[in-house]
């Protein structure tokens, strides 16, 4: 394995970089889209159930199908990384919008009433009171989305772009275990690091959850 | 009879929950274990049905050490009621109550028939049988909890803060019903509470615990109020214990003065006290069976400082002023 690593360092390094970009960009986009959606689902109660159901169906579409399918819908090239980014953004939104909504719903109504009574306007109350309190729940959802994105990117290899997934297909075609093992290990390590990073951020920004 | 023989419970980590407890809970009576939180009262209670194992010492029921008995069989013979009732949320009210008879091997039919009977006994109509616990109020849940504990007709009942999760009005109602039930059933009951008023109201005997698992005093409610063993008990029982101790004496020996100045109807029933603006209400009457506490309260509330006694027919037959009560209490003391 060491030999494989040294001989193919450049390829592996490129695949890893591609993997990171393809997995984390959708987390960023997904988060930005999911927060307002989640808020709307709480603000207008009738929206909650339809949104949850829609996201449930979106989430059950196989990633491979979505990867293959988006070029037709978006008019992008089949080999364009945009397809992967858009597909994973869809999954991230599907997962996070629900988490944001559930997180906001879990905020003690008494606290919200107290904030209103002290003169908070709705937007200020959302950013200053409700979102911070919902943050542990939201970040837990972000961990799930990030980790599953990192593992899903590799499926893209079946259509020619998939970061570390390309190591899988290459190893599989050549009947050669090393690249597959290296790909799996790097992918799991990357997921573990990203997960750890979010946990550390959460500790830093929500010190009150450590009180007990 | 439930006997604690020099029982000690030390938890891993070194905290002493119960410290050399020796105590006898008489058969057919209700003994209330009361004290501040962390005084070991619940731990002591749970040693009776082996939910907690003593570090040393013995707990005996009618002379038999519980330690030698099969846990599950022992518990099936002891009713158990806890705070918030601990009802099974996935079973109907009826099946909750039928739990222990079923464990004891009775058929579903007889167990349910028994359960239905018990529901009525605790004041719940048959309409509640098919409901689930989540569909009941706190007071109703607590009644089901009592019915469930009574289902196999156990001679002993353990009750851990059974009435503390309901509001004061419902609690008073449950107290009254429970006292009536106990009068009929005559179970040997051990009950834990942190509420000294509840202990005095319900208990035939009260065991006051202090922090660290020491038994501070074991006495009847009356003795507890009259002769607290030390400052801790006196303080715990409360500053108005003198007034409250009047609850245990009836007005049968209280001397009364002849009825005078009170407006009466043809049958001799009191109408009120004459005043400058017409009749003023008496604020209530008492009989010989009422407690001295009731009489004192009536005298204080009366517009003229006098309480009115009536006979069985409702006719006024005597008057008592606060001075008379004070004189009577002073004469009793000497």
């Amino acid at each position, binding site marked *: 394995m060491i030999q494989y690593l040294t001989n193919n360092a450049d390829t592996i390094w490129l695949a890893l970089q591609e993997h990171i970009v393809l997995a984390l960009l959708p987390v960023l986009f997904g988060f930005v889209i999911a927060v307002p959606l989640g808020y709307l689902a709480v603000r207008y109660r009738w929206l909650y159930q339809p949104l949850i159901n829609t996201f449930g*169906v979106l989430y059950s579409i196989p990633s491979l199908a979505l990867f293959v399918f988006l070029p037709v819908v978006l008019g992008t090239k089949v080999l364009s990384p945009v397809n992967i980014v858009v597909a994973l953004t869809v999954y991230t939104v599907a997962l996070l919008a629900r988490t944001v909504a559930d997180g906001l719903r879990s905020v003690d109504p008494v606290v919200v009433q107290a904030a209103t009574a002290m003169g908070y306007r709705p937007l200020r109350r959302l950013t200053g009171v409700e979102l911070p309190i919902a943050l542990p729940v939201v970040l837990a959802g972000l961990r799930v989305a990030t*980790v599953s994105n990192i593992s899903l990117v590799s499926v893209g290899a079946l259509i020619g772009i998939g970061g570390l997934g390309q190591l899988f297909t290459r190893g599989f075609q050549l009947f050669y*275990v090393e690249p*597959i093992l290296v790909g799996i290990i790097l992918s799991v390590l990357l997921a573990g690091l990203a997960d750890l990073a979010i946990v550390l951020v959460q500790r830093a920004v929500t010190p009150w959850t450590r009180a007990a | 009879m439930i006997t604690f023989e020099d029982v000690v419970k030390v938890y891993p980590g070194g905290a002493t929950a119960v410290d050399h407890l020796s105590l006898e809970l008489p058969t057919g009576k209700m003994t209330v274990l009361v004290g501040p939180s962390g005084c070991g009262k619940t731990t002591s209670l749970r040693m009776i049905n082996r939910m907690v194992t003593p570090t040393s010492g013995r707990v005996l029921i009618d002379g038999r050490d519980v330690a030698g008995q099969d846990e599950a069989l022992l518990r099936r013979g002891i009713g158990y009621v806890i705070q918030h009732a601990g009802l099974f949320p*996935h079973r109907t009210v009826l099946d909750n109550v039928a739990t222990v008879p079923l464990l004891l091997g009775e058929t579903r039919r007889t167990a349910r028939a028994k359960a239905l009977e018990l529901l009525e006994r605790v004041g719940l109509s048959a309409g509640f049988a098919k409901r689930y616990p989540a569909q009941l109020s706190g007071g109703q849940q607590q009644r089901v909890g009592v019915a469930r504990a009574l289902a196999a007709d156990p001679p002993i009942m*353990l009750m851990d803060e059974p009435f503390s999760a309901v509001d004061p009005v419902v609690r008073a109602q449950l107290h009254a019903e429970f006292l009536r039930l106990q009068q009929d059933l005559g179970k040997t009951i051990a009950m834990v509470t942190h509420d000294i008023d509840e202990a005095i109201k319900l208990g035939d005997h009260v065991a006051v615990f202090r922090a660290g698992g020491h038994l501070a005093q074991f006495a009847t409610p009356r003795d507890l109020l009259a002769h607290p063993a030390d400052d801790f008990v006196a303080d715990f029982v409360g500053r108005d214990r003198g007034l409250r101790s009047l609850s245990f004496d009836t007005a049968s020996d209280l001397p009364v003065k002849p009825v005078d100045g009170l407006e009466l109807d043809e049958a001799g029933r009191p109408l009120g006290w004459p005043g400058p603006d017409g009749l003023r209400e008496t604020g209530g009457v008492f009989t010989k069976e009422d407690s001295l506490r009731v009489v004192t309260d009536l005298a204080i509330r009366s517009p003229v400082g006098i309480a009115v006694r009536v006979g069985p027919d409702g006719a006024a037959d005597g008057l008592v002023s606060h001075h008379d009560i004070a004189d009577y209490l002073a004469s009793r003391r000497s």
Partner: protein
Amino acid sequence: MNFTYLLDPAHWEFGAAGGIPQLILSHLGYTVLALLIGAVIALPVGLYIGHTGRGSFLAINAGNAGRSLPTLGLLMLMVTLLGLGLLPVLIALTVLVVPPILTSAYAGMRSLDQRVIDAARGMGMRPWQVLTRVELPMALPVLFGGFRSAALQVVATATVAASVGLGGLGRLLIDGLAVNDYSRVLAGAIVVAVLAVLVDLFLASIQRWIVSPGLKGTS
């Protein structure tokens, strides 16, 4: 892009090799087998950890650890090591379903109202009776939620089996892609999504049937 492949009756002929019904059957076959094996492994472990509290660390982190394993890589590794066949697919998919089932079994047991269990013991239930008559029925809503999400995940992921030459609805995606037949790819995507929804509805009705009405609103 159009629906011609999906709507062509020839593709719906029952029993025809490569026909949609046959692909659905093999897809469901992988799914059910993986769920069964996964449940047999994960349920006892999750229930044990939840019941005793020992090994909570494992149960809490199993979920994220499992999600971080790329199923495609695992599948290709297994095929490279073991050769082509049902076994490598089942291993890869079982690894996928074990974490959510284990975590939810653990969470279900942990979420129980300890006072109710105290009451059950106090009334004289033996440990086995407490587990089967009180703890399991009460943990069922949470436990079943985990099972349903595992089922959804495995229905969607079983498509990768086609990438190593096996059957299942992934065939429509992989083969369609190979010959640039997007109508076939669309058919595959729609059938998998519909299958996922149907499986979830089926499990939901089972859940309604076996979960006590007294626990409604707690899941």
